[in-house]
């Protein structure tokens, strides 16, 4: 995973990129779902050793494994899921948050989710799962922060 520049606008830049990409898809739900699934297929494989019970995110309908490593003051996230849609969703979160420093992750406002109309695309059940993923990613950041201090 590439380490990003220490640039406070990075989070915003990435989110704006995502918003722009999704704007090309327009209102066509089928194309949007296909696009998310394609993102899921491109998500790098998670090492089998991380696919353990303790890495499963609770609150998701599908199975999602999330692993986080600390590199300097930045967190590198890796994940996998048993469904392609969920892999696509988490790949978006990883694109925004992985490689960011701890404080940026903790303070991150993930406005792109609402801007791209994710709630309507994935429905209420999966939206709850998405919230659980974000919460878990931030919990990792919090845990590493306490470990470093």
């Amino acid at each position, binding site marked *: 995973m590439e380490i990003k520049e220490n640039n406070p606008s990075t989070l915003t830049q990435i989110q704006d990129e995502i918003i722009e990409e999704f704007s090309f898809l327009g209102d066509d*739900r*089928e194309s949007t*779902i296909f696009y998310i699934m394609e993102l899921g297929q491109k998500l790098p494989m998670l090492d089998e050793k991380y696919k353990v019970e303790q890495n499963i995110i609770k609150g998701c*309908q599908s199975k999602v494994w999330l692993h986080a490593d600390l590199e300097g003051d930045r967190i590198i996230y890796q994940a996998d899921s048993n469904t*392609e849609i969920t892999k696509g969703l988490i790949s978006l979160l990883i694109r925004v948050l992985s490689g960011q420093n701890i404080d940026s992750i903790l303070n991150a406002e993930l406005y792109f989710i609402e801007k791209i109309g994710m709630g309507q695309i994935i429905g209420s059940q999966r939206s709850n799962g998405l919230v659980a993923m974000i919460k878990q990613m931030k919990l990792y950041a919090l845990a590493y922060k306490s470990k470093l201090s």
Partner: protein
Amino acid sequence: MSQLTEHIDTKFDVLYLRSQFPVLNQEINGKKLIYFDNAATTQKPERVINAISAYYSEYNANIHRGLHSLAERATAAYENTRLTIKEFIHADEVEEVIFTSGTTESINLVSNAFGRKFLDPGDEVIISELEHHSNIVPWQMICQERGAKLKAIPIDGKGDLNIDAFKNLLTEKTKIVAVNHVSNSLGTINPVKEIIQIAHETGAVVLIDGAQASAHLDIDVQELDCDFYAFSAHKLYGPTGVGVLYGKRKLLESMDPYQGGGEMIKEVTIAKTTYSDIPYKFEAGTPNIADVVAFNEAINFVKGLGPKSNILRYEHSLLDFATEKLKEIPGLTIIGEANKKIGVISFIVDGLHHFDIGMMLDAKGIAVRTGHHCTQPLMESCGIDGTVRVSFSIYNTLEEVSIFVESLRQIVEKWR
């Protein structure tokens, strides 16, 4: 089209039927809605929707104790539905029909009111591996409370109940046998008459969960000789929030009330209450009057379709066509091919998760259900964590089945 027409075997006009269901006339994601989630809930014909509106617009009043005209009219309409249901399920007496909020409450009523009174420590309750959670959890709860044991009839590889195993499970300690008439996940039609007969030989009382049967099969509680029969209005073209519990008079009279409150009393003093007779003893509080009244219209709608055998024959034409076509899709396995089924198909596709399939079908305007369908023990016994389930109703068409199969084929070819 020739392939389609050769499957058509119907005595009613499907296009006319569809025109009575306003919700079907819409697009989802720019595509004509195809509603194949009828086992979860059926859509409602206009006459049911209008009946709810008419009740609130014209004669809304609390029932039974009112002396005024509106209350009289509301009471008459409410009790008229009870009479319609008595005839619909061929009950001996109208008092044997109790209104509940749905199948789940009907089963909870029996597990509580009957179970608490007649289950002793060491007694046994038999359910089956095919059951919906609503016919598992209430029995687990009461067995735990009463120190009774819960046992389950296994299924064979096709999704049929193993009747020989059932005979072996039955003992003189078996007090209750609770099985579904039709499986919601696999569509299996269970031999409930045989099950009831066998259970009665050892003196057990039998509850049939008829949630998935009432829209497709003839229900004759006297012919079946079941002790209790539970079903919901919303799976029978009626409103949500209404269900029925049929119970034999003797049994209902032997049970104590399930809930206390208004409606179910004869006389209340601070020291003591005497209860109403059946069915009111089990209908505490103001019931769901509007929806019970509208349920009458749903039953009349079903009656208007002619004998249930017509309905089942038409739905079987959809089932057979879909089954045949789905089997041609590479990697697809149908879960549950019981000897007798209603129009329900559960399937999995190798290499594609059921959630992904469901999302992609929805994007194409096709509503199906995915997941464990509230039958986790069944999924476990099949060694899977869920399926895609399509379930047909009388307003579905062979053209819809064709579009669905073709859409699924495209999805599987692209993503598998």
